[in-house]
């Protein structure tokens, strides 16, 4: 029984690993370069957010507003960039029939400018 089970589990994990590998290869092969750059940037944003959060845990609340500005700028940027990536992708056009890539960029631009205005005013 147990041996059977363990082999089944093993098989499963092997299959999963294989799937992941296929996914990764497909990603490298089929994703346009601009989206790869955006994805890299999003990974960077997440990393910055985590670093600031951990840093705040270590040194305490003191420049609290500054922490909020830094951390929220990361969260906001991540959300806005993710939106841009989803909406400007032409293969998603069916889901957003009324939103052209230009419109999605304009949205991203206006929202980002607003976000950074708040961030800068908060950072002192």
């Amino acid at each position: 029984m147990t041996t059977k089970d363990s082999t089944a589990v093993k098989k499963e994990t092997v299959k999963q690993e294989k799937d992941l590998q296929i996914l990764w290869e497909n990603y490298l092969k089929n994703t346009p370069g601009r989206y790869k750059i955006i994805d890299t940037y999003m990974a960077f944003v997440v990393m910055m957010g985590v670093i600031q959060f951990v840093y705040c845990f270590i040194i305490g609340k003191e420049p609290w507003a500054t922490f909020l500005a830094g951390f929220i700028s990361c969260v906001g940027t991540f959300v806005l960039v993710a939106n841009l990536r989803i909406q400007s992708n032409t293969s998603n056009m069916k889901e957003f029939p009324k939103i052209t890539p230009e419109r999605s960029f304009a949205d991203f631009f206006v929202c980002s400018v607003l976000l950074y205005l708040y961030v800068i005013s908060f950072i002192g």
Partner: protein
Amino acid sequence: MKTLFLFTLILQLACFIFAKTNSLSGNRVLVILDKEEDKKEYSIFFKSLKERGFDLSYTTASNEKLEIIKYEESLYDHLILFAPETDYYENDINAKQFIEFIDKGGNILLAANENTGTIIQDLLYEFGAKVDEPKFTVFDNFVHNSTTPNVLAIEELENKISLDKLEAPVLYYGTAIKSSNKNPYAKPLLVGGPAAYSWDDTVVNKAPLVTGNNIVLVHTLQAINNSRIVMTGSTKMFTDKYINSPVKINDKTYKKSGNLDFITNISKWTFQEKKVLKVVSSKHHKVGETERPEYYTIKNNMHYEIEIAEYNDGVWQPFNATDIQLELIMLDPYIRVTLKQQPITNPNSSTYAIDLMVPDHCGVFTFKVDYRRYGLSWIKESDVIAIHPLHYNEFPRYLIQGLPYYFGAFSMLVGFIIISILALYHEDDSSNNKVNKEASTKKKTN
């Protein structure tokens, strides 16, 4: 002629000065009696009131000219209601009018008896008290005068409101008062002994309203506007007969009862001659300054000071207490501290003060001293002032330890610019993205 005129003027002035009472609310007293003749029975009590400078007017409850409020003004400062048996007061005077009289700052000394009529019953009900059925009187087979079990001789005070202890027992003959105990402004002054009960010899099958310590003999109430009311179930305790009566209780004998001392004290309390508190002044400012600021800033050190005086028998004295508290309230109290009494410099008042730090919370705060101790008049002193947050130049900014945050925020900004350039000008040249490119170029040509 001129000298005569001057002489009479001085005489009048002297009369005016000597006739002045110690009561803070005034000297006009209306005594309402059941019958005109009853006045003689209370002669000692009334005489003592006159000696204290009160201007007594007598009337009966059935007098056509009976009036206590006219044109929305009280005609008297104090009322003595010794007319419990009358069911109908002339000119439609009822409990509502007595309550109005209290609302206008009047004080009432009220006596019920074993035949209390509806008006007084209604009035007692308003004060959260109730008298027993007609003809029921309080008995105590252990604590009574000589051989009459229905004349109680009370030696102990339940609450030390107007006096500290009784020199001689107080004689009491009358009905029992039951307190609802729901009114926090009311407290009993004299209660029956543990073996006391309320009873009528002619009716055997009725249970008494209250028994033992729950029988209230003398009840007090201090209204929210500091009006004072004393209720008792015995008109007899004010009579000359009871004042002069010798007391024999168990083995002890007293030449005279303690009634005069007791009723003098409770009437002094009722008529605002004793235990009246007032706030002389209160101020607060930042430590090191003397003026009240326009606003405080969070964590400011401040100083609060309040001056309180106590009035007793015509003299303003320093008031001594250890439990006066200051509260800094914004919906909830943020700080509640006990004020410290300062060394007395003024013979007429005492000062309480404290240094404290205002809360680390901005908003509109109320600084309040709300001191409520039964027997003393309530005092409430409050001031509303804003507590501001720090001004932008009052705290350090751009700290070195915030560097990662600055880097995070500005890297996001730079990233935004890069992404924008990328979205606008980047062209993929890989073949698998033809559709994408075509779509975008089409849009551009359009």
